[in-house]
């Protein structure tokens, strides 16, 4: 059975491009475009990996990550954090909040696919 990836990203075109790339790699894809309600969605679909944008409407990606990590069940769920903010303090904040990997936009397709493979291997 193929591994499942949930992309939480509010930019529809980035979502479409990522969906195409990861489906082609054989992953089962699902997506969510708003911070609000996505914790319930994660609990419902139980993905193997989450690609999480830091800037989301209503609830930030950082907040979602902290909420997730506060639950024992999601301590080891791989979360790949995406952000347009690449300063050291942002990276540090994401690491402190429990991000498995941190990628800054603009990233390359090859790079993100390689990171997804790495986190799911």
């Amino acid at each position, binding site marked *: 059975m193929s591994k499942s990836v949930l992309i939480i990203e509010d*930019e529809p*075109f*980035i979502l*479409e*491009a*990522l969906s*195409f*790339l990861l489906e082609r790699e054989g992953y089962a894809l699902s997506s969510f475009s708003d*911070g609000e309600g996505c914790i319930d969605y994660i609990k419902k679909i139980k993905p193997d990996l989450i690609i999480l944008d*830091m*800037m989301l*409407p*209503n*609830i*930030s*990606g*950082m*907040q979602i990550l*902290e*909420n997730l990590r*506060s639950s024992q069940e999601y301590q080891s769920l791989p979360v790949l954090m995406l*952000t*347009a*903010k690449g300063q050291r303090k*942002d990276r540090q904040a994401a690491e*402190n909040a429990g991000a498995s990997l941190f990628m*800054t*936009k*603009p*990233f*390359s*397709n090859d790079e993100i696919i390689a990171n997804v493979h790495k986190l799911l291997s």
Partner: protein
Amino acid sequence: MSRTLIGTRIRERRRAKKKSQTGLAQEVGISASYLNLIEHNRRGIAGKTLLAIAKSLEINPRDLTEGADQGLIDKVKEAIAKNRHIPSEVDRLEEFIGRFPGFARLIERLFDLQQEQNQNLQALSDKMNSDPFFAEAIHLMLSNITTIRSTADILQKNPLIEEKLHSKFLSNLLKESERLSQTASGILEHFEQTHSQQDKLADQTTLDTFLESNDFHLDILETGAASPEEIIEELAIETEEQKNALVILKGYETMAKALPLQKFLNKAVQLKFAPLELAAYFKTDLRSIFYRLAHLPEQNNLPKWGLLECDGSGAVLYRKQLTTLSLPRFGSACPLWPIYRSFSQPMQPICALLDMPTGERFLTYAVAQFNDLGTIGVPGTLKASMVITQDYDQLIAKTALTSLPQLSVGLQCSVCPKKECTARRATYILG
């Protein structure tokens, strides 16, 4: 003035008057060899000889001895030092200035301009770093670029992609390019507006500049080394600014006496800077604690606090910005900020975590307090204060953070990408 310049000038002037060294020496009654030593800056010259040479060369003695002041020499030396990669004849600097004072002045002017431009660039860079619009625009541009890069890569590497998907990606590419153009135009427009608002920014008072340059911590008032009146005099604050400046500085002085720095710091560290507990311990109001927190010295181990104070109309009365958060000076901030909500529940402290659209998080405490009690039929006026810090992880245990209210807010409507916000009163300029 350096004697070397006088000799060089005498030689230049003599040549201009087409006189021989021997002829001039005879006219002034000195030997040609002595004049030669003077002209080559190996002998000093003053008094009668200088006057005689000046007379013979039909020049005011002052023109031989003045003009190239030490300031000019120092400035050209500084220009040379800052441009070490260009080998310059430093040992002949005075000769150069003496022979070509106009060129020397030109170097001085160009060097001054270069310095000014460097300072302007630094100021612009600082401004851009704390400009919420620019930060938001850059984020948006990076998202635009991510889409374009990723989509173009898919199209290029997948020539056999099904036609419907191919058209969709092409359409995405076009739309995202248009958004990128729109964002770039927005940035240009913003900087044009910024330029036209420079007069407004010039409204920054002398005291604002003084406080900012001291990171809002005034040792001289903390220790009583100077009075507010003496600071106003020292800063030569203009008459129309003096009244407000005095109110602010006297407020600082009162705070420093009521909440002495070291005593406050000791207790604040012990209480993890919790404003309510500090107010209870020092038997004072919350606003005074907020004010004290915002005026602590900048030290690595201390949390950095910003402060915003406004009246019931939302007009900003006082602000201390954080390097990571730009607080409004003229317009209002996001209406969802707790400082505005505090007006609806005077004297009720509010504590909340603010989540910005940029992903940054801040801890805030806000309270609205009465300035006066009012009279029968006339309500008292309120002033709201809010302290804000990004160093919340030093103050509150991670487990306790989740129990705090978390508010998803913006900075100002014009730079806030939050969709469907009921509090929105201005269009998102990058939308």
